[in-house]
């Protein structure tokens, strides 16, 4: 879980930073978006790196889900008779919502790919004009799309808040002081990533980016 999660988190950081390019204007953003398809040129022919990256991410996602499924199955098997009086959440809320949160994020990623990668669910859906796609996507009359994005990103934030801390722990973080640091770092990271992702749709919604 930890290793595949870290691969996905590294991608998310770059993705979030790249998204912020939207504030530099249409030409610059589109230029950046086209460059993403050509990373590695001239060492690799165009879009090769893109496909390598897609392959690595897919393997990481599949392995992450496979590990989560194995844990969930073991967890179900480990408690065949449930409590009549269900224990309330005493640890962290984020930790208890990892599985459903993960499912929500997966559904969101599928929607997100159909929206802004393939363009099927985008009102513009022109792969050569990513800036226009983004602006059309989060237009004020499509507020429900922005709402869905917000919910998904907040779910991602919760997932990362526990996930990042848990990754440190799984990889051997072992002191109480380090635990406090790891929890704080996970919280700050999750909030920062959420803010970075959400600022784009809200900038479009409020007309800051148009």
């Amino acid at each position, binding site marked *: *879980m930890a290793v595949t999660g870290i691969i996905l988190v590294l991608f998310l950081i770059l993705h979030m930073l790249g998204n912020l390019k939207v504030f530099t204007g249409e030409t610059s953003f589109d230029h950046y978006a086209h460059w993403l398809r050509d990373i590695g040129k001239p060492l690799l022919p165009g879009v090769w790196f893109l496909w390598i990256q897609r392959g690595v991410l897919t393997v990481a996602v599949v392995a992450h889900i496979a590990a989560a499924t*194995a*844990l969930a199955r*073991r*967890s179900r*098997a*480990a*408690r*065949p*008779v*449930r*409590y*009549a*009086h*269900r*224990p*309330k*959440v*005493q*640890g*962290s809320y984020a*930790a*208890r919502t*990892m599985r459903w949160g993960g499912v929500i994020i997966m559904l969101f990623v599928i929607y997100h790919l159909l929206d802004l990668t393939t363009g099927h669910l985008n009102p513009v859906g022109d792969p050569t004009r990513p800036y226009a796609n983004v602006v059309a996507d989060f237009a004020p009359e499509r507020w429900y799309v922005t709402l869905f994005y917000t919910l998904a990103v907040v779910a991602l934030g919760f997932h990362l808040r*526990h996930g990042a*801390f*848990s990754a440190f*722990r*799984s*990889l*051997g*973080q*072992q*002191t*109480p002081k*380090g*635990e406090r640091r790891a929890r704080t770092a996970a919280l700050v990271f999750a909030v920062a990533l959420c803010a970075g992702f959400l600022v784009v749709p809200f900038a479009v919604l409020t007309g800051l980016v148009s």
Partner: protein
Amino acid sequence: MNLTLRIWRQSGPEDKGRMVTYQVDDVSPDMSFLEMLDVLNERLILAGEEPVAFDHDCREGICGMCGLMINGNAHGPQRGTTACQLHMRQFKDGDTIDIEPWRARAFPVIKDLVVNRSAFDKIIAAGGYITAPTGSAPEAHSVPVAKANADAAFESAACIGCGACVAACPNGSGMLFTAAKVTQLSLLPQGQPERYTRVIGMVDAHDEAGFGGCTNAGECTVVCPKGIPLNTIGRLNRDYLKATAKRGDTPGS
């Protein structure tokens, strides 16, 4: 105090079991939780009914025998306290209290609130020991131990093996217990020879017993009557990673 208890009754391992409601009146707030159950049982016996079976031994909070899920909290609402040291003053007159056994596949119910925790013995047998010379205790100063390590080892050694961590864990995992038993030895010089075979053996025994996998949810440490900290699991993880890197130490390889 007058209380309504909803208690899990199960006549044996094969019985399906059910929650049964009992009314207990005139409970003193100074009674311990188990004394309150004793009062209930005496009344049940006088009425010719089967008393509620529950585990207990020292009633001083150090033996690890008692263990009840009280209103969904392992060992009840008071932190750092076993069920036997919990007093009725923690409850209010007229309260309804749900009492259930630990729920885990590895802890099958024997009767009512009594579960079989021998899965913990299997984990201990898989590595919870050291190759110490038998005979009289050696001179304590002959093997110096860093104070920080001694304190951390002692913190882990406080585990009484009651199973509350398993009961509270959303995954039914016994990792806090396993981690406490692994680290109390791996932090001390006497525990070094088996350090890496121990962690592999005990985690394997844990998984084999049917406990779930740890997801660092942190529910265990909240209910632990001895306050074993969650970072103990991090110590186990670090030992486990090192051990898997040097599998050569494993018996049979």
